[in-house]
């Protein structure tokens, strides 16, 4: 019996710790969303990546395929089929363009307010990332350049994922 008391104690501690972490994560959510800027900040280091994406023209044609993927994907379709897709594409082009230090400004809503009532969960967020990866690969954007953009988009998860 005593043989298993140490592992049991470690497990029990771990589960407790995990639960308190979950509670903390949940509690800190509203703060994080409020602190979320309208878009990810401009990063001058990513200027070469902007070129690898084919500039603003490249972003616009990328977004056509990205949106096609989102509508074709049953996991993301419900969020886009009845939305103003042309408007969303334009906002995404501006946002990606700003992140990659292109000559654009983003004037749209904050990520938090744009996603507040959509009830997006982690699975839906990951599905969107996959659809973006597919579109970027179709446009022959180098994998490393893709990851540099995704690294800037990933922190937006706290504003986009509202359904825990």
């Amino acid at each position, binding site marked *: 019996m005593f043989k298993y008391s140490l*592992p049991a104690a470690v497990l029990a501690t*771990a*589960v407790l710790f995990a639960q308190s972490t979950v509670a903390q994560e949940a509690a800190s959510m509203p703060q994080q969303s409020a602190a979320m800027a309208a878009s990810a900040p401009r990063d001058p280091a990513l200027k070469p990546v902007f070129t690898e994406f084919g500039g603003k023209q490249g972003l616009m044609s990328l977004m056509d395929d990205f949106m096609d993927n989102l509508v074709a994907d049953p*996991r993301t379709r419900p969020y886009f089929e009845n939305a103003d897709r042309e408007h969303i594409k334009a906002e995404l082009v501006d946002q990606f363009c700003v992140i990659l230090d292109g000559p654009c400004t983003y004037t749209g809503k904050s990520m938090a307010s744009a996603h507040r009532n959509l009830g997006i*969960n*982690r*699975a839906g967020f990951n599905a969107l990332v996959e659809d973006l990866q597919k579109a970027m690969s179709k446009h022959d954007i180098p994998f*490393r350049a893709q*990851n540099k953009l995704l690294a800037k988009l990933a*922190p937006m998860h706290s504003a986009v994922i509202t359904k825990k």
Partner: protein
Amino acid sequence: MQTHRKSRTALLIGLAMAGGLSSAMASAADTGGSQFSNKLLLTGGVSQIEGSAGGGLTPWAVIGGYGTQDEIGGNAFYTRLNLPDYHLDDVGALVGFYNRVEVSFAQQRFNTEQVGGALGLGNGFTFTQNVIGVKVRLFGDVVLDQNSWMPQVSIGIQHKKNDQAAVLRFIGAKSDQGNDYYISATKLFLSQSLLVNATLRYTKANQIGILGFGGDKNNAYKPEFEGSVAYLLSRNWAIGAEYRQKPNNLGIAKEDNWYDAFVAWAPTKHVSLTLAYADLGNIVIKQKQRGMYASVQVAF
């Protein structure tokens, strides 16, 4: 020998069927808004040698399978390690619950080939070890936390039981079973396409337990460091290297630290292949045990 080959064939067929089944389930689910397999490709790691999700030699902080926090994921694997004087067959499966808890099982069969004969145990003498693992993710998100240095951190236990108690006692091991306790921190540096893992393991296991636990030289738990780096070449390909420090408890034979260099390929979420060149150093009376490590797994 014949039955051994048969069981391996059966196993491979079983794995293929499981792969087909999980693919079919996934595509069925795809048509109705998928309820599982929504973790990103390769972000659940592969099954390491003791069955936990990680690299080849080392557990990572990731929870295995492709389930997100609303989903259950899982995988099954078969790994073969061919060394100059030994070989290892390793099968197992794991289930990941809600990206929080991972439960794993693995059976390792370490065949001593001619060395068994030389030691008077008989050619092909085999140590069989069962490993039950539990891992809990404490905090962090290996993929999404790209704006901080915070890694994903998990702790875990691997309970191991070896079937050759008498032989183990004879070579100086103190027990035929033991627990390893570990803490792993895994971080994906997405801008660099680089994944880094560090694991600290408290263990008494000799050659990961194949030669029992504790020994005449030392019978206390010791912290051992394990590390992995992986570079993502594309969505489907990763290359990397690993290091695993090991204790040295037995008087009869020196035990070396392990190294490997690997390439992993995941054409889809449901199948992955890992090939590695592993250097396991000295094992009992044989030096320079270096060879190929091949692992196939199916996941959902």
